[in-house]
């Protein structure tokens, strides 16, 4: 089987597993919605755009860490050994990243929808803000997938996940907050090309290093 087929097959397997149990998906969706609601009850209403923007990204950060942590931990040792014998490590990591991107896109759409519903909508350029959120969820997925692979090898994976991923995600988060703030203020879209360029560059770096390093992480 070539790489592309393997990836397709593994993604289908991930989606099917998720669909069969549904508890993880529903759990994480409920997590986002209730976090937004807790924030709403704590803040009541937010009038300053920077706070609105920052709070949204903090909610996204915690939700995505929670959503992606399980992507390697949930696989049992025996099942991992089975994959090891039938597929290449590149196929595994690519399929995990793509699956997590789907998951994060779904998550971010729901989070943004609910967030703008309960808090007053302050967006100047909603379409461009939505684009920033989609770019952000792709970046989160690509970084956290590899980190969750690293954390899953250690004891206390859940706690380690936050420690390992936060410093690595901060550069992305800084750029994302700036980009989405530009969109929020309704600045001309050409103002933000620099940020988009940096985000795409970081994503390419992260995905290539993941592809190169995952085979070493994989063999046990």
């Amino acid at each position, binding site marked *: 089987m070539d790489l592309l087929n393997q990836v397709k097959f593994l993604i289908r397997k991930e989606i099917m597993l998720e669909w069969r149990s549904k508890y993880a998906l529903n759990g994480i969706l409920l997590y986002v919605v209730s976090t937004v609601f807790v924030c709403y009850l704590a803040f009541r209403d937010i009038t300053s755009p920077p706070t609105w923007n920052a709070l949204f990204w903090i909610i996204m950060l915690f939700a995505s860490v929670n959503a992606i942590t399980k992507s390697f931990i949930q696989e049992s040792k025996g099942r991992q050994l089975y994959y090891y014998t039938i597929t290449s490590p590149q196929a595994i990591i690519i399929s995990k990243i793509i699956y997590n991107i789907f998951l994060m896109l779904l998550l971010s759409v729901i989070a943004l929808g609910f967030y703008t519903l309960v808090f007053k909508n302050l967006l100047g350029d909603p379409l461009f803000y939505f684009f920033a959120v989609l770019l952000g969820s792709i970046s989160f997925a690509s970084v956290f997938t590899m980190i969750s692979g690293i954390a899953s090898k250690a004891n206390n994976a859940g706690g380690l996940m936050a420690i390992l991923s936060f*410093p690595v995600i901060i550069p992305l988060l800084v750029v994302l907050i700036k980009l989405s703030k530009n969109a929020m203020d309704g600045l001309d879209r050409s103002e933000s090309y620099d940020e988009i360029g940096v985000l795409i560059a970081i994503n390419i770096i992260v995905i290539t290093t993941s592809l190169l390093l995952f085979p070493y*992480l994989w063999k046990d």
Partner: protein
Amino acid sequence: MNKNWWKILATVLVLYSIIAGFLFHVPAKPILNETIRNIHFHVPMWFAMIVILTVSFIYSIRYLNSANENDDLMAVESANVGIIFGILGLVTGAVWAKYTWGEAWSNDPKQNSAAIALLVYLAYLVLRNSLEEEQKRGRISAVYNIFAFPIMVVLLFILPRMTDSLHPGNGGNPGFNTKDMAPELRPVFYPAVLGWILISVWITTIRYRIRKLENRQNLIN
């Protein structure tokens, strides 16, 4: 003697930069005044940190290819020394900032980036502690080290240049390069940078040898 000349050179250069840094004539600039002498201490810390963390990165790559325990030891010890130099750089910078910018922590993008870079390497150490088995520990922490390094480069060299900064060379401040530095400072500054880089390598090799001896002792017992 043949092998140790660079250690003597390091000692001489650092001693020279301390004496000359405090005694030589410096240009009197507004705001900076005499605090400009700190450039001989603050900036070399960062040079040393970048060099020694690059060493750590290279040894992590070597460890993945060789699975030789010594490469892993070198990677972790250079990360340790890099963290020490990073902390020293932050402290000297904070003292300097207190006198020139008014506050020790001025929300400057470079200050923030440097603090985050330190968090990455502290996380690397925590990751090591949480793994018991040696081979596995070496491999997984090497993977994290290699994964985090390019992001740290983005953090330290690209992001601060995109926003306004109080540091020279960013956001319209006079650049920190060979053209802008006052000529009186150069004869002290360059030797200081080289001297501190050599000192950091020296400390790393000593730490590495201590760890190797400890390992051998553990084997015998």
